[in-house]
């Protein structure tokens, strides 16, 4: 009868989610428009004016809908916090998958395939979207539960001065830590010069047999010594640097260097790297244990690296 009114109500009905309510809402709006139009002349133009005074279909429909958010306002900051943390972890594993040329299934939801550098760059946006979607889904269910869930978040000291205070205690600790690391590096260096590697089995007093075959054993020994030397250097610089910015930059650089060396170590590891002196049944077990120890260490270092980059980023922003 009134095509304009029918079209208008039809459009409103598209936006109404509750099917039980829909017909009743539309009937009431129809009755309203017709009565108003009747008092305004009763022609098609009057119907048009009555429709215009109600407003656009979507605007009308939205007033009937619960304004319950998909993610509660109080939880929105966690969407970005958790996504950035998850993506940082994801990136570390993508980096490792590229460095050592293997696929990873780390969590039930996290599969990182074997990737080349170009593949990895193409894979990153997908990883970000997947992380964002997963976190959004969890927060959606938390919102739906309507419970006062206190979501965990590590208390990172994101302020440079708070994170890297320069006190007499920290200076002594850095000097002591750097000195101990330097001493251990020197001892291991001497050991490597004498025996060719630091990974040895002590059969009898003074009688050492290599635990690893010469190539991986030698390389892994140098990686450990380099890590200790880099750690010592980092501690010495932090002991004497006055600027928190320098101390934070050094820590971030140290974390980055450590991650590179861990990736190098992972690329050397393999179940066939042990010598005949190690029982064969232990090869796989030892290899897997070493891989997991290195992966967990990489994760801890990566979290510290992200925290330090955030601190540096905040300093740049505040300037």
């Amino acid at each position, binding site marked *: 009868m009134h095509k304009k009114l029918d079209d208008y109500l039809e459009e409103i009905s598209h936006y109404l989610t509750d099917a039980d309510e829909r017909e*009743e*809402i539309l*009937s009431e709006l129809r*009755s*309203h428009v*017709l009565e108003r139009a009747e008092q305004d002349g009763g022609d098609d133009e009057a119907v048009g004016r009555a429709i215009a005074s*109600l407003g656009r279909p979507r605007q009308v429909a939205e*007033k009937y809908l619960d304004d319950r958010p998909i993610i509660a306002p109080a939880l929105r900051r966690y969407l970005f916090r958790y996504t950035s943390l998850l993506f940082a972890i994801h990136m570390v594993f993508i980096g490792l998958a590229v460095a050592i040329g293997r696929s990873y299934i780390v969590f039930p939801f996290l599969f990182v395939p074997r990737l080349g550098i170009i593949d990895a760059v193409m894979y990153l946006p997908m990883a970000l979207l997947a992380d964002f979607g997963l976190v959004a889904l969890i927060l959606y269910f938390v919102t739906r539960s309507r419970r006062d869930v206190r979501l965990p978040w590590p208390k990172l000291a994101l302020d440079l001065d708070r994170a890297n205070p320069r006190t007499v205690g920290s200076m002594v600790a850095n000097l002591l830590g750097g000195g101990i690391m330097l001493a251990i590096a020197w001892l291991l260096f001497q050991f490597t010069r004498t025996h060719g590697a630091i990974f040895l089995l002590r059969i009898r007093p003074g009688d050492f047999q290599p635990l690893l075959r010469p190539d991986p054993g030698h390389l892994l020994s140098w990686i450990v010594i380099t890590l200790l030397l880099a750690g010592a250097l980092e501690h010495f610089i932090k002991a004497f640097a006055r600027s928190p910015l320098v101390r934070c930059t050094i820590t971030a650089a140290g974390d980055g260097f450590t991650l590179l060396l861990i990736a190098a170590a992972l690329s050397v590891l393999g179940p066939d790297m042990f010598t005949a002196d190690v029982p064969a049944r232990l090869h796989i077990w030892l290899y897997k244990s070493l891989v997991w120890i290195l992966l967990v260490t990489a994760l801890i270092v990566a979290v510290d690296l992200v925290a330090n980059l955030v601190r540096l980023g905040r300093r740049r922003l505040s300037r």
Partner: protein
Amino acid sequence: MDNEFASIETEMKRGFLQLLVLVVLEKEAYGYAMVRAFRELGYEVEENTLYPLLRRLEKRGLVEGKWEVGEERPRKFYAVTQAGRDLRRELLAIWDRQDEIIRKTVKESKNA
């Protein structure tokens, strides 16, 4: 400034309209009749606000609606329930208290 005014006015109207509806519906009425009654009182209500509000009040049991189909066209009439009356009494007490506070504060600030 105009946006600020419109935003605050919308918030003030939201609570006011709920109370007004609970007062007016002591005598049953349908939506468009209420729009006209409010207009005669000098209060312009957005039609797309009134109908969803009536629906929410009905869902919460504060008003009840029933369709009258015998007339020229079907109309949904609403009337306040006992729960609506109890709530209205409390809301009017708050309204009076707030009105008194505002008047007193404005008077004091003028005298200061």
